[in-house]
Each structure stands twice: as structure tokens, then as C-alpha cells.
């Protein structure tokens, strides 16, 4: 996959398949320390220790254990070739937390890419799931919690066309504000 956001989307899809109703996604880019940390924490069904040990090996995973396949091994490979790693912290019945690290300036680190579209793909999922997204780049921060959006909307679904446009626009503006070199905030 050419963008880290596609790996993130794939991991989020795993969370949805694992029955998560809320997923926290954090992206922390610390340019001074030259680190990039991606954290994905869900309240899905979680995995046993034995399963966690097997899940990073693409040749052991079976088709019936539907919520993980080739995705995580690809994500691990992407992190390890950039002086980073992927750590899984999971407990059956509680949820799963993935922490993925990279050396920010590593020549092999794929660009983050189109995060707004990746998040939209999950927000438009047929299974209702909330995303709490935080992206930090040095001192700047962008946050969006779809639970707050849902609270404003009442029984109007996130898939409703005007809401959908609002979400995509808000995400794009938020991401753009992090890239701006002179922020007025």
C-alpha cells in the first residue's frame, strides 16, 4: 500500500469486523524527535494472547478468523523498515490497541496520504461505529469525534448526504490546518 492512511483504514476495518462501536485514532508527528506514532484503540471483542502471537504471521492466519488477514503483516513490515514497530495490546472482551511507530524522516516511510477519505470509509460503514480522531503535528492539533457529531444530529445518520459532505469538508479543512506553515490559532 502506497500510503500509511490505507494501512490505518485496513486496521480500522479490522476493528469494525471485531464488533467495535468506538475507535480512537491518534496520529502524532513529532518532527523534533523525528518520530511518528499511530495509535488505534477499539472496544471490539479483542484477541487472546495466542491469537496475538499468530496474527502478525500471514501464513498462519486462517480464513475463519475473519477479522485479520494480510493487513497487519503488511502494516508491521511498513513500520519495521522505517526503524519502527507495531505493538499489539489486546484483551478478550475489552478491545485492542495498536501502536505503530516510524522514524519520521526515514526514506522508506510512506506518506500519510489521504486521511479524510480513509476516515470517511469507516464513518460510512453499514455498521454504526464512532471515531475519535486526533492528529498532532508538533504543536498543532486537529480533533474530530463523530460521537459529538451524532449527538448534534439526533437520529439523522452520518450517511445522510449533507452530513457526509460536512464530515468530509471538516476533515479536509482540519488536515489542511496542520499543514499550514503559519497558523493563526
Amino acid at each position, binding site marked *: *500500500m502506497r500510503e500509511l492512511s*490505507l494501512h490505518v*483504514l*485496513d486496521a480500522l*476495518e479490522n476493528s*469494525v*469486523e471485531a464488533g467495535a462501536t468506538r475507535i480512537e485514532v491518534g496520529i502524532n508527528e513529532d518532527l523534533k524527535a523525528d518520530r511518528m506514532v499511530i495509535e488505534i484503540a477499539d472496544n471490539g471483542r479483542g484477541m487472546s494472547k495466542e491469537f496475538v502471537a499468530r496474527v502478525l504471521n500471514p501464513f498462519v492466519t486462517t480464513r475463519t478468523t475473519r477479522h485479520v*488477514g*494480510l*493487513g497487519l503483516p503488511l502494516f508491521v513490515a511498513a513500520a519495521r523498515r522505517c526503524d519502527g514497530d507495531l505493538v499489539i495490546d489486546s484483551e478478550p472482551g475489552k478491545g485492542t490497541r495498536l501502536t505503530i511507530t516510524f522514524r519520521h524522516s526515514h526514506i522508506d516511510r510512506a506518506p500519510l496520504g*489521504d486521511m479524510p*477519505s*480513509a476516515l*470517511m*470509509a*469507516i464513518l*460510512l*460503514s*453499514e455498521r454504526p461505529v464512532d471515531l475519535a480522531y486526533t492528529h498532532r503535528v508538533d504543536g498543532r492539533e486537529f480533533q474530530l469525534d463523530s460521537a*459529538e*457529531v451524532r449527538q*448534534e*444530529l*439526533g437520529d*439523522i445518520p452520518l*450517511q*445522510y*448526504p*449533507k*452530513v*457526509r*459532505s*460536512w464530515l*468530509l469538508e*471538516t476533515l479536509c*479543512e482540519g488536515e489542511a490546518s496542520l499543514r499550514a506553515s503559519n497558523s493563526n*490559532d
Partner: protein
Amino acid sequence: MPKIKSLEELRKIREDAQKDLRIRTETGTRIIVGMGTCGIAAGARDVMHAILKELEHRDIEAHVETVGCIGMCAKEPLVDIEQAGKPRVTYANITPQMVSRLIEEHLINGRAVQEWAIGRLDTTKGIQ
């Protein structure tokens, strides 16, 4: 931060939506995009983005939903279009470049794009 203003926009959207939501969820169009690992690797996210842009550009109100892997991984990206009273049509190997024609022929002209379709499913949606 524009956050407060943005939430006010949401309230406005909610008011507008409540008036006509019932009609739309019952008789509207649904577009479903496969978003498993297979779909993502084949470009499903960008296809979804192209669909959102095309619908906005043409001012078409349709629901867009993503689903997990349905098992036809070699045919990804898969896009299903479902309209009231018509069979649900599954399209295979869709790219962002194909989206404009897909929307125009299927949604506007009301004809399925035969050479891209790989299946149809009868639906009872919208039939009394």
C-alpha cells in the same frame, strides 16, 4: 478554531434533514462500496471518494455505504447500486475514472452499464 460554527451548521442540517429523511431512506438510492483489505489494496477508498465527489458535483442525493470483504476479492473494487423497485446491480473492478460514466448511465439515464456489471440481485425495497 471553526468548531463552534461547524456544530451550528450541523444543527441546521438536522432541521432540514428531519423534514425529508423518511422519504429518502425508504425510496432512495444506495451505493455500496467493498472496503475489506482486498478492496482497499485495489483502490476502493479512492473509488468511494470519486463517488462522493461525483454525487456532490451532480447534486444527486444517494446514500453511500461501505461494507467488509464479501469474498470476490479478485473483482475488487466492487460497487453495488440499489434503487427502489429495481434489481441491485454489482459492478466489478471499478476505478475512479469509471465513476462518472457509472453515475451518469445508471443513476441519471436509468440503465445499468452492462459490460461492467457482474451480477444482479432482485430487491423488494420500495415495493409496497
